[in-house]
């Protein structure tokens, strides 16, 4: 009897096993349902080669990327989309808008929850970039894409003419602080005597002194908000950043050319400015628009060690249709392995800090910039920054301060007049 029971049980077990194995073997043969992931993006946040690669790896997935025209237009479209409850599956949010969206995390999927469990990935990324995707209640609404970073791209030939050192470490030693940076700038103008608008051979120290403001702001621990709902745009750090930039503007070390204008691209070629505060992705602009200056540029560390402009988070809006598939793509695209590929292929500096110690990043040298160790320089800069709370009216405040600095540059007001007007203007704008 026991023997029969045993045989029966064994047969049952075998059958169960057979079914299980059979099921496992059969499952992959079952075609997964076709899925379309809709992504709203801007610029080159989603690189086309990576998109094609993912589609090859997952033949049932089609990725449709829609370029909304720019980071501002995308933010606008997203706000409207939230109200209409018609959103894409993934939306890219540029860092200057992260302040706004982080204050309203209910519009996004909280990626801490299962099945996303984003907190497991937190350690892979630079903490201040991770913080830019964290909502005011600690929700994880997005993962970071790249790090803009900030270092100084300088013209070796012009430095030589001005009698400055040209080797990048020596150059960085010239300006350990921003005060020293401004001094170097004044020296440059004094030595070269070419920072005059009329001159065909015009050459000033930096393209636009206003860029110091962003650099200085992002190097601190507090920007315009103390915390959620606590706006504080006149704090000491902001005031210092403003005054310091004011000093540079009054000293006239800049060529007063706004970035991304015709004069700026021409200026790159003609040496109208000897330095520029460059995020990693901006180095590409120099390569593309001033190819004739190859080998004339190098990259040195920025005063204060590091800085940041740009970057974005990839988020999943609450009203997304294909959340699970979206997460699969998002987490794959932003995983360290893929960020490394993007870096090698497109030059976007990774936010996955585990990559910083890999040889691919550490030893990366760019021949255009005299074989400067771009990877090492930007990595060390990225590690120096601290998380900053950014709030909803970030853009408005930045824009008004930007105008104030423009007035100082145009000699319409002095630093304290510009500051006072800016503060009044911000108060009014915030009251709307």
């Amino acid at each position, binding site marked *: 009897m026991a023997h029969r029971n045993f045989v029966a049980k064994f047969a049952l077990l075998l059958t169960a096993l057979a079914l299980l194995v059979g099921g496992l073997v059969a499952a992959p043969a079952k075609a997964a349902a076709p899925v379309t992931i809709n992504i709203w993006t801007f610029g080159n946040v989603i690189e086309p080669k990576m998109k094609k690669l993912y589609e090859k790896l997952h033949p049932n997935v089609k990725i449709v990327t829609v*370029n909304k025209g*720019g980071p501002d237009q995308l933010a606008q479209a997203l706000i409207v989309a939230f109200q209409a409850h018609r959103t894409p599956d993934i939306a890219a949010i540029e860092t200057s808008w992260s302040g706004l969206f982080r204050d309203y995390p209910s519009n996004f999927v909280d990626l801490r929850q299962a099945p996303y469990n984003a907190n497991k990935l937190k350690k892979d990324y630079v903490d201040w970039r991770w913080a830019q995707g964290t909502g005011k209640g600690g929700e994880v609404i997005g993962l970071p894409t790249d790090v803009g970073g900030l270092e100084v791209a300088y013209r070796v030939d012009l430095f030589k003419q001005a009698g400055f050192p040209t080797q990048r470490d020596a150059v960085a030693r010239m300006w350990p602080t921003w005060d020293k940076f401004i001094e170097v700038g004044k020296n440059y103008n004094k030595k070269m005597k070419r920072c005059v608008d009329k001159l065909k051979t015009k050459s000033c120290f930096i393209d636009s002194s206003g860029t110091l403001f962003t650099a200085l702001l992002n190097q601190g621990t507090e920007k315009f908000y103390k915390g959620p709902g606590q706006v504080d745009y006149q704090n000491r750090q902001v005031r210092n950043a403003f005054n310091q930039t004011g000093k540079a503007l009054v000293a006239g070390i800049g060529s007063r050319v706004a970035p991304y204008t015709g004069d700026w691209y021409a200026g790159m070629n003609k040496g109208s400015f000897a330095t520029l505060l460059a995020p990693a992705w901006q180095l590409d602009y120099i390569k593309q628009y001033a190819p004739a200056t190859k080998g004339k540029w190098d990259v040195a560390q920025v005063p204060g060690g590091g800085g940041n402009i740009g970057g974005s988070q990839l988020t999943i809006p609450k009203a997304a249709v294909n959340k699970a598939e979206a997460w699969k793509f998002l987490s794959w695209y932003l995983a360290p392995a893929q960020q490394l590929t993007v870096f090698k292929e497109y030059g976007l500096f990774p936010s996955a800090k585990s990559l910083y110690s890999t040889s691919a990043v550490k030893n990366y040298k760019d021949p255009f910039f005299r074989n400067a160790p771009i990877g090492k320089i930007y990595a060390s800069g990225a590690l120096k920054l601290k998380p900053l709370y950014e709030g909803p009216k970030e853009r408005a405040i930045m824009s008004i301060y930007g105008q104030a600095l423009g007035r100082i540059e145009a000699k319409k007001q002095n630093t304290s007049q510009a500051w006072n007007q800016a503060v009044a203007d911000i108060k009014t704008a915030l009251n709307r």
Partner: protein
Amino acid sequence: MSTAGLAIDSTAPVAPKVKKNKASRHKKMSPLSYVFLVVIAFASFFPFYWMFVVASSTSDVIAQTPPSVVPGHNFWNEVKAVFEVVPFGRNMLNTLIVCLSVAAAQVFFSSIAGFAFAKLRFRGKKALILFIIGTMMLPSQLGLVPMFLLLSKLNWIDELKALIVPALVTAFGVFWMRQVIDAQIPNELLEAASIDGASIPRIYRSMIVPAILPSAFVLGLFSFLASWNDYLMPLLVLQSPDKFTLQVAISQLNTKAYGMDYNIVMAGSFMATAPLLILFVFVGRRLVTGVMDGAVKG
């Protein structure tokens, strides 16, 4: 706005005598006139030409000083690149569908409404025409977000009809047609026709329409162009690449997050604009002869 008793007899045969006087009125073109034409033509065309220069060159052309005015050799590469990013042919078709529908509808609805305002009497006419002019004073940006929400409620998002239906009528068109009909069709003619027993739709069809054809063409052209250039609303409303119109397609081309990828964007703009010029050459003939007809029938 009286027409001061003009009698336009559009059915009178053109007598040779008229031709001789016409020739003497229009003297030879003075060289000054030609200079004026050339200067304005140059200023009008140069930016378009320069668009092609940038589209056909490599990136550094934007940085050259003085700016290069010679086209490069890169045009077909850029064209290929454009087609890789967006289904450009499909986008052009979408734009044609939208623009033609809008132009035809605007001309038709404006002409009947304009006719009513110009020549028919009805209660509240004065107030209504002022209301229509008043609607032109509302800034369009004001209604952008609510319009999107409305279209979303109608489930028209990502459909071409979201661009066509709201644009079927236009205050400018009504105002323009009213003014044209008022100026070009004397009351005496209409009086005679109605004495003969013609009904209002008949009058519209056989008298108004032929007389306003040139102006209707001009309005159609303008409506077409306005629809072609429309950017803000399509960018919000259209979500899939194969529904895009040309302006939205062009904004897909920029892969620089800050600043612009000049060559490919200019190539896309050029590809979106050049067909219009070709269209003008064909349709324009009709336009010119239509417009000149008015002069001959003096």
